[in-house]
């Protein structure tokens, strides 16, 4: 039976037949790895930051994949992998719970950033009235 030949000798070596008498059987349902979410810490004291996900059959193998996929270029000090299924996720429809947060400036430090200026301005005003 003729096999697939390629310029790439590795493909030729596989000896894959050009035609199959019977097509390869379909994969079993759910015959897949789990996904794991990957978190990297780049500096001492920094938070672990989510960088992506990997497919793997176990946490150990997920870590060994994550190391190469997300840690082979930049500097990384530590890594976490977490089963995606273990992450409890908010419903996207509930995004409206955050809708008015932007208006509540009094809850934000930035809102108090110029407080010294305001105090000074108030004192100035008081001074003017007294005089």
């Amino acid at each position: 039976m003729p096999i697939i030949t390629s310029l790439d000798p590795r493909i030729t070596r596989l000896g894959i037949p050009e035609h199959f008498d019977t097509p390869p059987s379909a994969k079993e349902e759910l015959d897949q790895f789990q996904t794991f979410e990957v978190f990297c810490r780049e500096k001492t004291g920094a938070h672990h930051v989510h960088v992506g996900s990997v497919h793997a059959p176990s946490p150990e193998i997920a870590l060994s994949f994550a190391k190469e996929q997300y840690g082979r270029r930049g500097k990384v000090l530590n890594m976490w992998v977490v089963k995606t299924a273990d992450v409890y996720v908010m419903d996207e429809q509930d995004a409206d719970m955050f809708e008015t947060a932007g208006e509540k400036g009094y809850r934000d430090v930035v809102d108090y950033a110029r407080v010294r200026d305001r105090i000074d301005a108030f004192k100035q005003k008081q001074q003017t009235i007294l005089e």
Partner: protein
Amino acid sequence: MAIQNLLLRMADDALIIGHRNSEWTGLGPILEEDIAFSSIAQDKIGHSLALFTMLQEFTGLTPEQAAFSRNAQDYTNCQLVEYPIGGYDFSLMRHFLFDTAELLRYQLLRDSSFEPLAKLAKKVVGEIKYHVFHANTWVVQLSAQGTEESHSIMQQALNTCYPLALGIFEPSKVEQELVDTNIFLGEKHLQNLWQDSIKETLQKAGLILPSLTDETVGYGGRYGYHTEYLQPLLDEMTEVYRLDPTAEW
């Protein structure tokens, strides 16, 4: 010279296993594993480059010349690394047995009296630690946490690879000199450490070392005696180099 002999064995091992394992690039069982295994193979080529660069002082050959222009009988890699990649079971088992030895070897060499080698060892030992972590997790996963079928395939792979792996430790004629000059504690010492180390992982994996009547079946490589598989590998690896050996890249 003893040091030259040691450096060449290590350089050739790294070059040939690196080339072999890179044959999986694009063909790995899944994308993530393809990336990991290819990256490990690339690290090996990097180690061979560092070692050939060190050797240049003794041989006068550039790393490219040393890697690509010698005859098969001048390579001193162990036979284990030159065997075709086979199935993924064979490649993984070889990776496990070889890299466990590499890690222990480089750990010992951190204290070598030959300073350039000690420096290199300190630099790459972390990289090889990852190679062993990768190998260990797969061997345990497929043997102990897999199916009966995957376990028996891994046991078969161990039966095939183990006798060949003993060829890593084939003693050279300069063993005593390396020990006496505090360059390296020697292959025998390394082999003992290796036996203990692989036993630990194999126990977790539920795999059993085959009993051997002849421990030297994998020998020969260190003296230039190779299997029929090395020449075709060299032909393929040096194909582009031979088009124009003086080309500047």
